[in-house]
């Protein structure tokens, strides 16, 4: 039984439908780039991330995956229904809440804020907490306006800049996740958990003979 309030076919695409698509792309690529920044810092400065830093990286990528679910729906169907819209942003909000907790836990740890140099007066876990909270607020605003933006056609199912941008955001997220996987494998080696204070790449310590480490 269909409610008269729910259209069976997507409403003709308008500005609001396109805005929601671009915001989902921006959210996906934005969090992927934040995680990539952490990887660049790790390899350029030789700074090994602590276990809670790695947890925050996971939450960033999980939140991006929530928005990526919306992007994928637009690429597949050429429209985003209210159901898929709320599912994607619900996933993102859940991951943002987990990331907020992890960054708060790290920020209040004795010495936790000293994990990395201060940037503009704030240490990395504090910046992460602010970004998680700001993103949660942005997602809340988008959900509050969902009645006006859901069930809108998005010209992303066929060739064009919408499809190119959506696919680029998705594959950027896949790339950053793949590099994160390689980085954490090198750091963790064949152990179950990262040490509380990482000092070396455990994989090389486990595999290579002493003189080659």
């Amino acid at each position, binding site marked *: 039984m269909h409610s008269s309030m729910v259209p069976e076919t997507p409403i003709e695409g308008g500005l609001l439908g396109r805005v929601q698509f671009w915001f989902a792309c921006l959210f996906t690529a934005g969090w992927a780039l934040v995680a990539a920044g952490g990887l660049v810092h790790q390899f350029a400065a030789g700074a090994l991330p602590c*276990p*809670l830093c*790695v*947890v925050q990286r*996971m*939450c960033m*990528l*999980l939140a991006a*995956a*929530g928005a*990526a*679910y919306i992007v*994928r729906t637009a690429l*597949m169907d050429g429209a985003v229904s209210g159901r898929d819209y709320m*599912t994607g942003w619900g*996933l993102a909000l*859940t*991951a943002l809440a*987990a990331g907020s*907790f*992890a960054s708060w*836990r790290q920020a*209040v*740890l*004795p010495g936790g804020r000293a994990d990395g140099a201060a940037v503009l007066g704030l240490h990395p876990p504090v910046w992460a907490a602010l970004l998680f909270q700001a993103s949660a607020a942005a997602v809340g605003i988008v959900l509050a306006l969902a009645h006006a933006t859901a069930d809108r056609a998005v010209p992303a199912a066929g060739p064009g800049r919408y499809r190119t941008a959506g696919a680029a955001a*998705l*594959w950027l*997220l*896949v790339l950053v*996740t*793949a590099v*994160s*996987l390689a980085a*954490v*494998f090198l*750091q*963790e080696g064949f152990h*179950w*958990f*990262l040490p*509380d204070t990482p000092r070396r790449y455990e994989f090389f310590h486990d595999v290579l003979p002493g003189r080659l480490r």
Partner: protein
Amino acid sequence: MDTLIFGGLLATLFALCRESSRTAVLGAWWAVLAAVVLLTAHHAAGGPSLGAGL
């Protein structure tokens, strides 16, 4: 465990990009989140006490 979680996340994203079913994508996402929560609990409980049972 961190490596396995990132591996699960990468598999989830591949399922998402390969247009797998909604159930498969969402199931994988929630499984990865559950693992992240367990890992967070392990590390949060293992650090210095906050006086709040953490």
